[in-house]
């Protein structure tokens, strides 16, 4: 492996890790707050990529508008998803199969969104072209396009923004309070009923923006959300479900493993290698990098 390869891997890690982090951080936020694994996040990525395609290619507006539109659209759809697939089940929250039921309902929503997109847009892949041209020659022919750099930076800013939102604002603190102790939060007057849709809308909106970026890197298509969903699942398990810093570290680690695998053994083997890694993680350290060991395990 030459020095060029290594720089190339690091550049890819930086870009992929940032975008994966954006998808995964929403999943871990939802898990931390609602104790559900939201399988509709992948379809939010897909919807984001179609919004990006619609704004950038069809309407021909600029990327900032696309990001704003994706944010609003997926925020609303995420809130809607919570209201139809999770909120009606909240009274069964303490049942032993609550996680399983919500896993299935959010998955059902994902099936509906994906296939509506298939029916409306057809199965073909669409290029989402960004208007920022050019790039930096990082080292010996390794190119870092400005648009990828912009995506990574916006992703990092959004993740940091989420951190500030959770740490400093009233609503953010309410979300953390619910994640830590639901009953105590309720006693302090936190409006839990409003907070849940808000949390899921917020997480979906981050996934939607990541979708605009991933659409730019790859394509917009009805199945564009499948792989990001699987990778986000790997990232959140690797980082420890519910731990935000763990998720960010894990996103870069997974991005690094994927980039290395692509350079060393080829693109088709990247995902199976990630699955191999996650198999090992689950066997050796099931709670992930920074998760807390759960008493509910067998």
């Amino acid at each position, binding site marked *: 492996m030459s020095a060029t390869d290594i720089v190339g891997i690091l550049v890819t890690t930086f870009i992929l890790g940032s975008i994966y982090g954006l998808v995964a951080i929403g999943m871990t936020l939802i898990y931390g707050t609602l104790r559900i694994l939201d399988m509709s996040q992948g379809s939010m990525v897909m919807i984001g990529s179609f919004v990006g395609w619609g704004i950038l290619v069809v309407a021909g507006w600029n990327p900032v508008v696309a990001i704003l539109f994706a944010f609003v659209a997926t925020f609303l759809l995420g809130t809607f998803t919570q209201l139809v697939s999770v909120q009606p089940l909240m009274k069964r929250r303490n049942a032993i199969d609550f996680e399983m039921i919500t*896993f299935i309902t959010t998955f*059902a929503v994902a099936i509906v969104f994906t*296939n509506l997109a298939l029916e409306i847009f057809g199965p073909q892949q669409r290029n989402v072209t960004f208007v920022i041209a050019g790039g930096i020659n990082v080292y010996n022919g390794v190119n870092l396009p400005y648009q990828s750099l912009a995506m990574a930076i916006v992703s990092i800013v959004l993740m940091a923004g989420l951190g500030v939102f959770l740490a400093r604002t009233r609503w953010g603190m309410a979300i953390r309070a619910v994640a830590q102790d639901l009953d105590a939060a309720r006693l302090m007057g936190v409006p839990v009923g409003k907070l849940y849709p808000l949390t899921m809308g917020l997480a979906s909106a981050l996934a939607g923006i990541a979708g605009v970026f991933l659409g730019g890197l790859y394509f917009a298509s009805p199945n564009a959300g499948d792989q990001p969903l699987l990778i986000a699942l790997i990232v959140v398990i690797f980082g420890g479900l519910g731990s935000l810093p763990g998720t960010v570290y894990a996103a870069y680690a997974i991005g690094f493993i994927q980039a290395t695998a692509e350079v060393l053994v080829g693109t*088709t083997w990247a995902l199976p290698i990630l699955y191999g890694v996650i198999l090992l993680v*689950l066997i050796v350290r099931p709670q992930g990098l920074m998760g807390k060991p759960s008493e509910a395990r067998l």
Partner: protein
Amino acid sequence: MISRRLFPSMTRARWAAVAVLVVLVAAFPLFYKNQYILTVIVTGLVLLVLNISWNFVLGVAGVWNFGQLAIYALGGYGAGILMLHTPLPPWLAVLGGGVIAAVISILLAFPTLRLYGIYTSLLTFAFAEIVQYVILNDGSGLTGGSYGFPTVPGLYSSLSPDASMSAYYWTILGVVVVSTAALAATGRSHLGIAIRAVRDAPAYTAARGVSPLRYRVIAFAISGFLAGIAGALYISFNQSISPSAMGLTPMSIDVTMLVIGGLGTVFGPLIGTALLTIVQTALVDHPGIELTILGTFLLIVVVFVPGGLVGLIARTYHRVGAWAAEDEQAPAEETAEGQPAGAGTAGAGAAGKGTAGADEVEAPVPRREPT
């Protein structure tokens, strides 16, 4: 009498009803010769065997095993390799596919032992994805990679197409009947009670001396064997199998079938598979609309009809039964003792337990000597 102990809800009349129903279904290909419809039905029956096996581990044992389709495919590939590369008779190759799948399923059970819930699902799903990738990118020619397995003769290569269709129909129907009866009988046995107790109260059950590890491995072995048989029947009937038998789309359809029918119930897979096969066949030209409808259906059933259609039928039956008893007073013991599981669609033939949910473990947890 053993049938009395294993199927306490089965009266002689109910046995007769089940027998008549099975004979009627079995006689179907004698009168009906449309090859397309028969192919759809046989494919549906193969899927039903897979769903019965998956229902056992997912619904009855409560283990989130999302690797079942990989086990199923491995059973199919295993049987195919046995058919092509060994002199074994085809029916032994089908059994061999089941055994291979059971062994792999047991091996898959061990790493899940420390995990629960979504963690189990992710581990098993990761396993399934790896299996699919390995087969897709297999360059050795053993599995045929993404082109699918080389053509195999199947079980009934010596028969005419019409006769072999009927033969497959009866074979797979036989497997469905036997496995449904066996798993229904398991429901009241020591094994079935222990497996459901581990699902509903793992800590308590373990404290009573029932090893959760042991019963999880047994559940994986049973369901893996049946899934492997399903895969082997699939490759025999279609004369090939390809990696597209696994993956996210077939898995979501199977989950929908199980949940709509009623997860963890005896007749849930039957009703769910039948219903969804009909919907799929009717909408075969509109895959997008078909899955949109299935997804909406799934959501509605999970939110509003806990326990699936079997649960709904059982509750209705119960209510009607209670209402009739109130009216007449006389046959009170019959209805009050009677069935939570009078699955109406399958005739009056309810076997053993049938309602989903935690109310099943009414029998005491079997006691073990502490080890």
